[in-house]
């Protein structure tokens, strides 16, 4: 009598079933490895599925271990390589492994936009902009309307100060998918840099409605300030001020709004200065309160030991001082400060080094938008 066929493994089916919850996937894959008699092919499937479950639970070490074992069993399996690359890239922080794996996939499978974009983003994270640019361009050759590629590519162009080209790519991206919120947000910013405030506000309205936890309210606030919508601007600046002291320089813009409306925002500004207990931007805010000089504020901005933050503080100082002089009628003096702020450009730094505990990044988005707009006005 022939031996009966081996019983179907108990746990294997649940492990690989698409409808299994993450809990069931991890548990049944684990039990399958312990109890089911698996061949190498099944074992690879189980490891791959469990790794995806671990990744979903944010257990990167366990996921990477499973994928390493799967890779050992099936070194040429591109599904394993892709999973390992994605995990290294999105969770593990090992861009070197991700890049090697994406390259291997492209070499074996040929170019495909999805992998090229992932490779490009991995390069971006490693600050290898030239290689990132090449990969994005290849992806866009194959798929000119690839929204992800266009959006990410625009960030390189912005970093290279090619603002018009960045905006053009983002226009294409929004045309390809008007519902992509990230792209809307990026285009909103690019429109503000270009001085197209009303369109920029429209995009930011959509983006902020979808992500009310975002911190870009101040950017919309600046566009509103520049177009005379002071109540809305005041509300947006206040929103960011309530998030973190990282945005304390916005208090100056609320002071300017009060001034433009003929009221006195001095008491509120003084309250913020007091709460900062000498920390930046207290020296800057004190200038508009008449308690110190512009030079003192610039010295204070330059005295922070962290170069990136130093430039951000300097940009904040120049933007506020320029506006302050403009309000006092000193157009020539204002222009010098706006030029300095514009020349510092778009920067981002993590303010945690200064605030000790905060992890909210500081940037020059607001200042850069203002400086470019004001310089355009002054040139006219």
């Amino acid at each position, binding site marked *: 009598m022939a031996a009966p066929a081996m019983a179907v493994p108990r746990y294997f089916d649940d492990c690989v079933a698409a409808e299994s*919850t993450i809990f*069931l996937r991890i*548990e049944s894959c684990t039990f399958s490895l312990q109890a089911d008699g698996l061949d190498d092919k099944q074992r690879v499937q189980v490891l791959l599925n469990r790794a995806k479950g671990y990744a979903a639970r944010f257990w990167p070490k366990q996921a990477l271990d499973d994928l390493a074992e799967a890779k050992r069993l099936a070194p040429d399996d591109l599904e394993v390589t892709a999973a390992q690359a994605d995990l290294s890239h999105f969770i593990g922080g090992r861009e070197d492994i991700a890049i090697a794996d994406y390259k291997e996939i492209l070499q074996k499978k040929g170019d495909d936009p999805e992998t090229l974009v992932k490779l490009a983003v991995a390069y971006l994270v490693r600050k290898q902009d030239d290689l990132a640019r090449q990969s994005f361009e290849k992806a866009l050759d194959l798929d000119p309307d690839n929204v992800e590629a266009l959006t990410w590519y625009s960030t390189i162009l912005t970093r290279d100060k090619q603002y018009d080209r960045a905006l053009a790519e983002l226009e294409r991206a929004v045309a390809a998918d008007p519902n992509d919120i990230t792209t809307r947000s990026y285009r909103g910013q690019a429109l503000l840099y270009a001085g197209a405030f009303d369109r920029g506000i429209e995009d930011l309205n959509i983006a902020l409605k979808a992500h009310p936890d975002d911190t870009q309210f101040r950017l919309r606030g600046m566009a509103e300030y520049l177009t005379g919508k002071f109540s809305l601007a005041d509300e947006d600046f206040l929103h960011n001020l309530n998030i973190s002291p990282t945005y304390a320089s916005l208090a100056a813009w609320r002071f300017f709004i009060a001034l433009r409306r003929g009221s006195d925002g001095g008491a509120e500004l003084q309250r913020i200065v007091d709460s900062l207990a000498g920390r930046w931007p207290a020296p800057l805010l004190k200038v508009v309160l008449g308690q110190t000089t512009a030079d003192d504020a610039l010295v204070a901005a330059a005295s922070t030991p962290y170069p990136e933050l130093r430039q951000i503080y300097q940009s904040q100082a120049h933007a506020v001082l320029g506006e302050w002089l403009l309000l006092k009628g000193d157009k020539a003096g204002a222009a010098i400060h706006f030029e300095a702020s514009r020349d510092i450009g778009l920067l981002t730094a993590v303010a945690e080094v200064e605030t000790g505990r905060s992890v909210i990044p500081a940037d020059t988005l607001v200042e850069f938008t203002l400086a470019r707009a004001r310089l355009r006005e002054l040139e006219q």
Partner: protein
Amino acid sequence: MRLLLAAPLLVLWLAASAWADDRDYGPDWQVCIYAVPSELPDRLEACNRMISGGNLPTPDLARAFSNRGKVYHLLGARQKAFEDYSRAQLLDPKRVKPYFNLGMLYQEDGHYVEALEQFDKALALDPRLEDLQCRRGVVLKELHRFDEATAAFEQAVQIFPAEACSIGYLIEIYAFADRFSDALAMVDRAIRANGQGTAQLYGFRAQVHEKMRQFELALEDLNRAVTLDPNYYNTVRTRGRMLTKLKRYDEALVDLNRAVALAPEFNDAYQWRGDLELRNGAYHQAFDDFRRCLSLQRDNSVCKVLGMQAAFLTGDFAAAAQLADSLPPKFFGNAPLHSGLAKFARGDLAAAEAAVKTYTKMMPDDPYGWLWLTIIQRRLGKDAPPELKDIAMRHDVWPMPILRHMLGSASAETVLAAADVPDADIRKQRTAEANYYLGELAAMAGDEVKSKVYMKESVAIGYAEIDPLNFIPVHKDNDAVEVGLAAATLRGGL
């Protein structure tokens, strides 16, 4: 020959220089600078007299200010400490301690940037100052400058191979990066530098092995540590915990009893002994130990959670409710369910239904909420909640088979077979739970005999807990409620 003659003279000169730095100005100086047996207020007075005396040379005046600052620091007068450290720095910018102490003051207040600045200044003056690099590393870590923090800790153990503070942090850092061999090499170097090693160093070695989940090797290290210092509380307690992990409960109890005797004022020995007793079926003793733990530290949430489980197991449902209510639901998501179940156990079905209903709204993905709502509503003569069908259809883990059994789509045998999984702890927990729920359902169906058989089996299996480090996610990690309720049912209390 001349060189040989010169050597003793050089030694004498060096000794004299050292003495010159250690001038003695009498008893006040001894108390202020060297803290010869004295209380802090006496030290403060002595420093005050030395400072106001007006006859100290500048470097010694700086020392007096620095030491008075330290006294203020210890007394909690932070502003005065700050002022004295700053005065000391001004008077003698080359003295390292005022920078170190001011750095610590800033660090304690959470001003990490300022603390780092002070530690950096101290480092420039004396890179070999003990504890400095470790403190600096901690500050860098707080500032999220992890690579620099690691470098600081590593520099510290380069200079002082057995420096405990940095070793402790490096073990965590290396373990996080899977660099276990580096961690072991570091601890071994520390042990070699120390001759035969200390109990603390072997404790560190055990910590690495435990992180590697090599519990037997960890136990070997702890055995050495206890041999070196049988009265060192930390290692005795940790060995007790390790033996519990290895399920060697009798030996574990000897160690944990000893740990309690060594430091009856420490809550964690009670916590670990309670944990052991829970696993060993000594539920009343466990409950007592968790109560002791909480009397020493009222907000110890581990003792609250385990105490609540012990309360269920001993049938003290009032205490279980009280402990469940004291747990913040933000961090202990299923505490409100336990609170409801304690009400169920006390016979207040209406209150239990209301609590569990609220829980199912708060945590709709927890199948235990729906399971319990169904049981309570059946007891109240109501139909099962309409959501039960959809929940039971989910392709999910335990207790899904019980939900399906309630809906009639799985037999009791299927439920028990589903509980029979390869992992021993999970099998034990699920089988105990399966038996309780099958017993409860049999009783509802009027089959008291069958119900008793199931309930007895649940109690016989007893308490089981799933180790989270198995990395198998579960909806509930222990069976205390079910075993406790089975025991209460058999006692005729439910």
